[in-house]
C-alpha cells in the first residue's frame, strides 16, 4: 500500500490521504493515530501508505480509549507536535467530549495564550446500510457551539484536500468531519498541495432565483435538486457550501440572499438549536425586509436515526425534499420526478461498513 502522491483527479478519500501524506512529508512533527488507523482497512483507505512511508512512530493504532487519546493529542500538541487523531465515526467522539470541550478548546485561552494546540480531530459521519442511531450523527453544530474549536466539513475532494492541509497547519484545534458517502466522489483536486483558507464559504452553483445553503452531503443533494429545478422549472438556484462551520463566513450567503430574496438551509443535522438556526438568524439580522419568503430549514427528523431503510428514508432529507420545498416556496406546480434517477447508496456501497 502506498500513500497517494500528487494527483489531479481524485476521490475524496484519496484527496484526504494525499493531503495527510504531503503534510507528513513536509513536516516531521505531524503524526496520525487512533483506533485502527494502521490496520489492513486504513480508515476506508484514507491512511493508506502512511505506516509504510513514515513508520509506526508517526502512524499507529491505539487502544480503544477515546478520551485519553484526545488528551494525548493535546499533550503532544502543546509540545510542538501536530497530531491527527482519527475516529471512524463522529459518535465515538462523544467519549472524548470532556477532553475536547473542557481541555482542548480552552487550553490556549486558559493558559493566557502561552500554549498553542495544533491538533486535528478527524471523524467520519456514517449513513445508510443500517447505521442506526450511534453511527450517523454529524454533531458539527454541537462542536461549533464551543469557543476555541474550528469545525470543518468539506464536501468536494478539492476542498477536503486543501482544507485538510490548512487544518494540519493551523495552530488551533480543528474538528474535521468527513461524510462516508463523499468518499467515492471523484473530482478535480488540482495538481498542487495548496491549502484552502479556513473560514471561506464557496458557491457550488450560480443562480438568481433562490439560495440554498447546504452542509456536507446535503450539497450533493442540493446540486442534484438545482439541476432538476433548472430543467423542470427553469429555476436558477445558487448553492453555497459554508465548508467551515466555525468560523462561518456568512458574507457570501448574505450577498446571495440579497440577490435571490429566498433562502433554504439544508443542513446535515437536526434543526433544533442547530447550525441551520445560526444561518437563518444571521440572514434575518442582515436581510430583514428583503426576504420574499420566510427562510425554510431542511434537516434530520427530530428523532434518533432509525436502522431500517424504510424509516431512514423518512429520517433524512434528500434532493426530492429540496425540490418540493422550492416548488412550495416559489409557488410552482409539483413536477413529475418519476423519470429522474436520484442518488442511491446501494450503487456504491454494499456494506457491511
Amino acid at each position, binding site marked *: 500500500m502506498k500513500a497517494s502522491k500528487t494527483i489531479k483527479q481524485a476521490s475524496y478519500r484519496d484527496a484526504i490521504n494525499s493531503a495527510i501524506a504531503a503534510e507528513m512529508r513536509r513536516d516531521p512533527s505531524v503524526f496520525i493515530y487512533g483506533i485502527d488507523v494502521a490496520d489492513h482497512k486504513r480508515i476506508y483507505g484514507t491512511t493508506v501508505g502512511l505506516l509504510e512511508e513514515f513508520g509506526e512512530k508517526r502512524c499507529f493504532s491505539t487502544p480503544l*480509549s477515546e478520551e485519553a487519546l484526545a*488528551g494525548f493529542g493535546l499533550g503532544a500538541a502543546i509540545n510542538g507536535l501536530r497530531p491527527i487523531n482519527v475516529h471512524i465515526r463522529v459518535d465515538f467522539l462523544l467519549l472524548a467530549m470532556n477532553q475536547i470541550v473542557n481541555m482542548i478548546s480552552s487550553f490556549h*485561552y486558559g493558559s493566557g*495564550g*502561552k500554549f498553542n494546540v495544533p491538533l486535528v480531530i478527524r471523524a467520519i459521519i456514517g449513513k445508510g446500510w443500517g447505521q442506526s442511531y450511534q453511527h450517523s450523527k454529524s454533531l458539527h453544530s454541537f462542536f461549533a457551539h464551543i469557543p476555541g474549536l474550528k469545525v470543518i466539513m468539506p464536501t468536494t475532494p478539492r476542498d477536503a484536500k486543501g482544507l485538510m492541509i490548512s487544518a494540519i497547519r493551523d495552530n488551533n484545534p480543528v474538528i474535521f468531519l468527513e461524510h462516508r458517502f463523499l468518499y467515492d466522489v471523484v473530482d478535480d483536486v488540482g495538481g498542487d498541495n495548496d491549502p484552502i483558507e479556513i473560514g471561506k464559504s464557496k458557491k457550488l452553483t450560480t443562480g438568481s432565483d433562490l439560495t440554498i445553503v447546504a452542509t456536507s452531503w446535503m450539497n450533493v443533494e442540493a446540486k442534484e435538486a438545482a439541476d432538476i429545478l433548472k430543467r423542470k422549472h427553469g429555476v436558477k438556484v445558487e448553492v453555497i457550501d459554508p465548508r467551515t462551520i466555525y468560523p462561518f463566513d456568512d458574507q457570501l450567503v448574505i450577498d446571495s440572499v440579497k440577490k435571490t430574496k429566498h433562502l433554504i438551509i439544508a443542513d446535515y443535522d437536526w434543526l433544533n438549536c442547530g447550525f441551520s438556526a445560526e444561518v437563518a438568524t444571521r440572514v434575518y439580522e442582515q436581510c430583514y425586509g428583503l426576504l420574499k419568503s420566510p427562510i425554510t430549514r431542511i434537516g434530520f427528523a427530530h428523532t434518533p436515526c432509525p436502522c431500517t431503510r424504510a424509516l431512514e428514508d423518512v429520517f433524512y432529507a434528500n434532493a426530492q425534499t429540496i425540490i418540493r420545498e422550492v416548488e412550495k416556496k416559489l409557488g410552482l406546480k409539483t413536477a413529475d420526478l418519476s423519470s429522474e434517477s436520484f442518488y442511491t447508496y446501494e450503487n456504491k456501497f454494499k456494506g457491511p461498513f
Partner: protein
Amino acid sequence: MTNLNFHLELYKKMCLIRKAEEAIIKNYPSDEMKTPMHMSMGEEAIVVGVCQSLGPKSQTFGTYRSHALYLATSQDTDGFFAEMYGKKTGVVKGKGGSMHLSYPEKGLMATSAVVASTIPAAVGSAYANKYLKNGKIVGIFFGDGAVDEGVFWESLNIACLMKLPIIFICEDNGYAVHTETVKRHGYKSIVDIIKNFDCQVFSSESTDVEKIYKISAKAVNFVKKEKKPVFLYFKYYRYLEHVGVNWDFDKGYRSETEFKKWFKKDPLKLQKKRLLRLGLSKTQIEKVESAIANKIEECIQKAKKTPFPKNTEVYRDVFYEG
C-alpha cells in the same frame, strides 16, 4: 550546594507554599480573591520532594489542588497572587484563577479543575518528549479520586503500552471531595492492581520530604534506565476542607483526631526538626520563615494595587492568531 543548603532548600520550598496559603487564609474573608481555593496544606512534602528529584528539565501537570505544585516549580509568588486576585499580571492573565495555573518556563504545563483531566495530556506530553528525544520526564500529580475515573486507567494503560517516560504521582489523602476511600473502591489496594501493569510501583506513607525525594529519585532513575513509567503512591492528609480555607471537622465525615495524628508528622515540622538537628539555630530558621512571609505580604500588596485586565481582554486568546 553544600548538604545543609540542600536540606534548607527543601524547607524553604515547603515554607513558601505554607506561608502563601496562610496568607490566603488570612486575606480570603475580605472576598477580593474570587476564585475557588483548593488548599495544598498537608501535601507539601510530596510535591516538593518529587519536584526536587524531577529537576528543572522535567514537565509537570497537576490538579485543581496545585498551589503547592505551582509554587514548588515556579517560585513565582507575584504571578500567583496576581492570578488569585484576578489581575492582569496574573500567571494566566486572570483567565484561570486558582485551579488553572501553568508556568511552561519551568515545565509546569497545566493544572485543571475536572478530576483526572490532565492525566492523558501528561501522557501525550511524554509521547512528544520521547518523539523529540529531548530526555524530559513528565510528572503527573493527581489525587486518589482521579483513580475512580476511567480516563486514569486509559492513560496508565497507554503509558505502559508505549513505554513512555512518565511518573504518575498519586497523592492519596483518603477522601475524594467528602467521600472516603472505602465508600468508593470495590478493590483492596490501588498499588496491588497497578503492579500488574508494565511499570514500576513505589509507595510510602511518609511525610518526610527527604524520604519522598529519595523514593522519587529512584523513580526518575528507573524511568531513565528502563524506559518505562513509574507509579508513585503517597499518602498524606488534607488539612482543610475540600474547597475553601476552613477546617471542616465539625461536618461529620472526618474527625479532628485523624488530623491530629497526621499533624504530629507535619512535613514542615519534620524538616524543621532535621534542620535543628543538623545545627541550624531556631533564630536562623525563623529568619528564613519571616523573609518568606514578608515577600508574600509584598506580593499581596502589589497584587491588590495592580489593575484588572481591560474589558477587551475577554476576547483575546480564544484562538492563536498567526
